[in-house]
């Protein structure tokens, strides 16, 4: 309980809280991109805004949905960025308002196209702060289109799990059901009363302070459910997959990208996924943060997920160590270096593979500050 007390007294470092703000900054910075078909410059009909989580979950999602939308309406642009929800989750209201203001400006400068969203959290926030945008969801736009969709009559029955952010949005659920019926997907709605939808446990910064609480919320929501889950919120999909459930996003059905067994993506690799999503959208190579490419094993990635460490933190650590020469080296030529980060000291053991390529061996951290003295050991 001491942990809680210290958090309350604002004594614990703001480590988990900063993770989400950094995620947001990255989505708005080196993973951001605006793609406008040149022939429709100035006369766009749709602006597709996938939000910061779609490409972080599967880098192929934004581009695949964009291709679908282009088939429905060629005058469509895509803007990879973030709506500012993470700053809202952690209570940075000023920052969140400034993100929204920038967004509004961008929308104006593109000629006020119809904004099309894939994430219900984005919708909630934009409806609330920028009501004149009146965004639609990609599900509504596709349900209204005459687009030919793949058919899935052979699938086992799926349990449709609406995201908690759909509580006041029956029209979005309706559109999702229309799409499912058009694709002949066998399904049942998991929680009928849309106004009392439970939460999957993602967001609201629950994972930061308490990953176990987030997973428990997911478990509670689906533990009694035997059918595979179908979500139309990528965070729900990933949380359910993380709780060991077969789960699909409706985008998987619309685009054929993933089957029922896709595991939950690593939190620690979300920034890499966003950069890859951008590269796929722009048709170029993925840019590496600080030019450092990093090999990370499944096991290390999982451990980093639990500690809310991003691969980018490790890249910063390596860049600093290699530039300054300030690191330790063991007999197997493994480099061991540290990085102070929001009141925590992160250590990484890594092997140089030549050029700017490194293999991460292990990561650990401590909260205590260790200071050198001039004293020699007395014992």
């Amino acid at each position, binding site marked *: *309980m*001491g*942990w809680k007390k*210290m958090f309350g007294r604002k*004594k614990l470092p703001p480590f988990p809280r900063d993770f989400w703000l950094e995620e947001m900054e990255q989505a708005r910075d080196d993973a951001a991109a605006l793609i406008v078909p040149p022939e429709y410059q100035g006369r766009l009909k749709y602006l597709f805004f996938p939000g910061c989580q779609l490409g972080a979950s599967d880098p192929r999602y934004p581009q695949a949905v964009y291709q679908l939308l282009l088939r429905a309406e060629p005058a469509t642009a895509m803007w990879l960025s973030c709506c500012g929800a993470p700053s809202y989750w952690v209570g940075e209201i000023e920052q969140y308002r400034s993100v929204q203001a920038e967004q509004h400006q961008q929308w104006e400068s593109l000629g006020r196209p119809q904004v099309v969203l894939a994430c219900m959290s984005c919708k909630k926030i934009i409806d609330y702060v920028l009501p004149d945008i009146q965004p639609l969801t990609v599900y509504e736009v596709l349900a209204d289109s005459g687009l030919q969709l793949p058919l899935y009559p052979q699938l086992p029955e799926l349990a449709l799990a609406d995201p908690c952010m759909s509580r006041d949005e029956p029209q979005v659920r309706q559109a999702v059901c229309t799409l499912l019926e058009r694709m002949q997907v066998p399904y049942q709605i998991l929680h009928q009363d849309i106004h009392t939808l439970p939460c999957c446990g993602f967001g609201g910064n629950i994972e930061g302070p308490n990953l176990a609480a987030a997973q428990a919320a997911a478990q509670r929501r689906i533990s009694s459910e035997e059918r595979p889950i179908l979500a139309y919120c990528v965070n729900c999909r990933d949380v359910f997959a993380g709780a060991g459930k077969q789960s699909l996003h409706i985008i998987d059905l619309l685009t054929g990208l993933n089957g029922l067994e896709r595991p939950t993506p690593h939190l620690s690799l979300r920034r890499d996924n966003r950069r890859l999503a951008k590269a796929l959208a722009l048709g170029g190579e993925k840019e590496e943060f600080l030019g450092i490419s990093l090999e990370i094993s499944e096991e290390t990635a999982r451990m980093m997920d639990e500690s809310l460490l991003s691969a980018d933190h490790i890249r910063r650590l390596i860049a600093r160590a290699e530039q*300054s*020469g*300030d*690191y*330790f*080296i*063991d*007999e197997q030529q493994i*480099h*061991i270096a*540290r990085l102070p980060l929001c009141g925590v*000291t992160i*250590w990484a*053991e890594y092997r140089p593979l030549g050029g700017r390529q490194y293999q991460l061996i*292990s990561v*650990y*951290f*401590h*909260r*205590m*500050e*260790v*200071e*050198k*003295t*001039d*004293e*020699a*050991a*007395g*014992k």
Partner: protein
Amino acid sequence: MDKHVKCAKCGEELVIKKVVIKYFEHEFRKDVPCCPKCGQPYISYEFAKGKVREAEMELEDK
């Protein structure tokens, strides 16, 4: 020390030195391998996960 670790900058083998460890208002001294030349302390995985974490938890519960 079980692992043979050197300071890359100074090329020196590490020696055990006393360092100051701070955690919020608490402060204590501990023997830790350091570079004899630049004094940089090395906190190994075992030490961070063992002794350091133990002490942190003890202080967090105070």
